[in-house]
């Protein structure tokens, strides 16, 4: 089945089984390897993408869900202004450890900055609660997103 959608600001079309997992479409068909598979059950958030402006675990979404939709992955977000700001802040605090979960954190943080952006720790914790990180203890991730919210406020 032919399915069209917008991927990182480009119109794309793919002819595939509509029940193919979105993560497989992104990684195998489009070579967007920043979307990681950590658990395959929608629990860890390493595969988070934005589908129609909402964070979605791409390992439990199917290609059909993307039909005529808009997808933004970590690679796409990294090229945006807010994405760059977030990367600067994660880099500044040395928050990144193994990094496997971080593209997912970047997506969820970007979504928070776009939709709310208040430098409020409790709100940030809720916004990132779908992403598991085993290395950091989250403290420096919170610091980074708070820092990004504050910098965004100023700009």
């Amino acid at each position, binding site marked *: 089945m032919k399915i069209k959608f917008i991927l990182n600001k480009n119109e794309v079309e793919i002819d595939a089984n509509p029940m193919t997992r979105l993560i497989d479409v992104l990684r195998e068909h489009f070579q967007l390897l920043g979307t990681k598979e950590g658990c395959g059950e929608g629990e860890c958030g390493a595969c988070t993408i934005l589908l129609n402006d909402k964070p979605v675990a791409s390992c439990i979404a199917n290609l059909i869900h993307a039909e005529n939709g808009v997808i933004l992955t970590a690679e796409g977000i990294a090229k945006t202004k807010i994405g760059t700001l977030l990367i600067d802040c994660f880099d500044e605090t040395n928050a*990144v450890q193994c990094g496997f979960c971080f593209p997912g954190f970047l997506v969820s943080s970007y979504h928070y900055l776009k939709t709310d952006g208040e430098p409020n720790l409790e709100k940030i914790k809720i916004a990132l609660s779908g992403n598991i990180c085993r290395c950091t203890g989250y403290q420096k991730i919170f610091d980074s997103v708070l820092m990004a919210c504050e910098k965004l406020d100023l700009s």
Partner: protein
Amino acid sequence: MKKAVKKFDARPKLNGSWKFLDDYSYENMIFGQLFYSTCHHGIIKNIIFPKNFDLNEFTIISAKNILGKNIVPEPVCDQPFMAEKEVMHFGQIILGIAHSDKKTLRDFVENIKVKYEKLSAIIDPKECLDNERNHFGKEILINHSNNEKNTGNYHKNIYYTQHQEQAYLEPQGAIAIYDETKKTMFVRVTAQCPFFVKSGVETIMGNAINEAIIETSEGIGGAFGGKEDFPNLLAGITSLLAYKSGKPVKIVLTRNDDIQITTKRHPSRIEIETWTNPLTQKIEKCNIDYRLDAGAFQTLSPVVMARGVLHVGGSYAIPNIKIRGRLFKSNTPSNGAFRGFGVPQALAAMEAHIDQIAIDLKIDPYLFRKVNLFKIGDEFPTTQKITENNLIDCLERVIKNSNYLSKKKEFAEWNKDNSNKKGIGISVGFHGGGFTGNGEKVLKSELKIIIEKNANVKIFVANTDMGQGAHTTLSQMFYETINHPKEKCRVQLPNTSKTPNSGPTVASRTIYIIGNLLQKLAREIQKKLNFENLESYVATHQNEFPREFRKVYIPDKSIVFDENNYVGMAYKDYSWAACVNEIYFHADTYKLEIIKSWNVFDIGKVVNQKIAEGQAEGGILQALAYANSEFFYKKKFGRVRNFTDYTLPTTLDVPEIDVEFIHTDNKIAKGLGEIPMDFPAPAVRNAFLNATGIFVDEYPLTPENIFNIIRSKNEN
């Protein structure tokens, strides 16, 4: 404070361009999968492949196809790569299977049926550890005792801890490529110890290959000990599939497979009896029985037990102490390395026991610790002398940071009028850096650097960066020593054919052993070439470059350890730490909520403040979750199956974590990797005891566990 050096790999990790194992592809590559036992113990009667598949399309290997030996090289060589007739545990690998299409492969493997003749099996750690008959045989005895008499107050408890899953976010994986002309096997792997993997692949392949060349993936998505020995087995089987199929083979485990078949933290049963002098409040004598559930095979468990018994006496001056360590056998996958390596269990028991004694003696646990903590001149159970007082400094600091004394009073008042309870608890700990005893002598770790014509410095070590920032910190230790530009210094991706064997990435040894060795080498090169600025030296001496320098680690002669009697210097340097945790107990839901965790460390010289803080925070959260949420064993299914039923802490579960490194005169960087996981868990348990007066002898303190303890207490 100077600004922390940033990690060289942070930005590419964030934008998705840093390559982890599954991000690599090779021409003609096919996919592999492991087929494993779902029987806890039994004899394989027959294996039935599903119909509707063309078997010729698949590459299938079993123990019969192994070209070398069917034994995974480990400290104890008792685990086969693949089961032959008898399966000893759920998750034991029976077949390796490869096919060009992932989906076809999965459908095929899911429908393979095995008939087993079932045999008796032990999967409950408590059932395993309570029964002396399950003892593997050997034991370690430490006897630092010259008083056989038992006098004073007597205190005895038995503590249990459960499995813990490493839960590295990137699952295990390997890609093997066979080169028929050179007769070499190249394996790319996500692993901590490339040279262990080399030995695994060469063992399974035997004379079929001349050499196995192991290179890690660019990114190693977490490990925590979980990628210490299992990758040897996985890479071995992947290699055999590549050899048989003649094509590159990639195996990446699904989370379900990974969590069910790989190594975990050893469950423990630790029995402690102590005699104290009620007048001096000092511990006079202590007997400890330290038992670990090793799983079906011993593999590296004796090494875990060695570290465990060397730490289980805690940080206390005990004039008479006897410690006995034993491994027990069960029908679960062999338990293995996990950050802390036997010490979290040891301190979970000892630090809980210390609070229990303090209650018996009606003294505050803080004051009781102050009276009994190591002071300069005291001895470890191995007779090694204590040479620094930094643990007391850590304790005093954390008591002050947390406002322990005033909070304790305040909570006692508050608890009188409330059914929910507030509590505060302490724990302290230590961790010996580097390999136990003579380990570093045996290893003879070697590293090399190459200085190129453009004054770029390439550092070759076998130690991997699995997220702990080792490669950033190592290169920092080199360039800061000789004031070389940061961007001209880079640790190379570990590859066993290019990198000397600087030993495995374990035992909190990478910065402590290899980093300090690298600094020495930097100073030696500077002295030898007699330069002030390396760049200008290279510019004016172009014909001398590129030039290679090597250095071998030779441990200090003062390190003498008798491995038969456990006497002497078990570790040269120790890191120390103290923790205070504040908790809130919800009486209606039995939930133990951790409000805040204060931690103070002595790790010697801190090389990179932010990286060190990040290591500490991550380890502390693992320890807190070890105390109140992570629970592996499920009676009905044997094991959990995914992150859906293994409760890892999320952003909503993590308390505020306060970390401080005390400033000491120590010029060297000591180990940091493991100590954050070692000691904070018992402070959760002790805070619960403070809040409720309820004695808990079994970790973790999940709502279910607490509910059962309170119910059985009420019934009695």
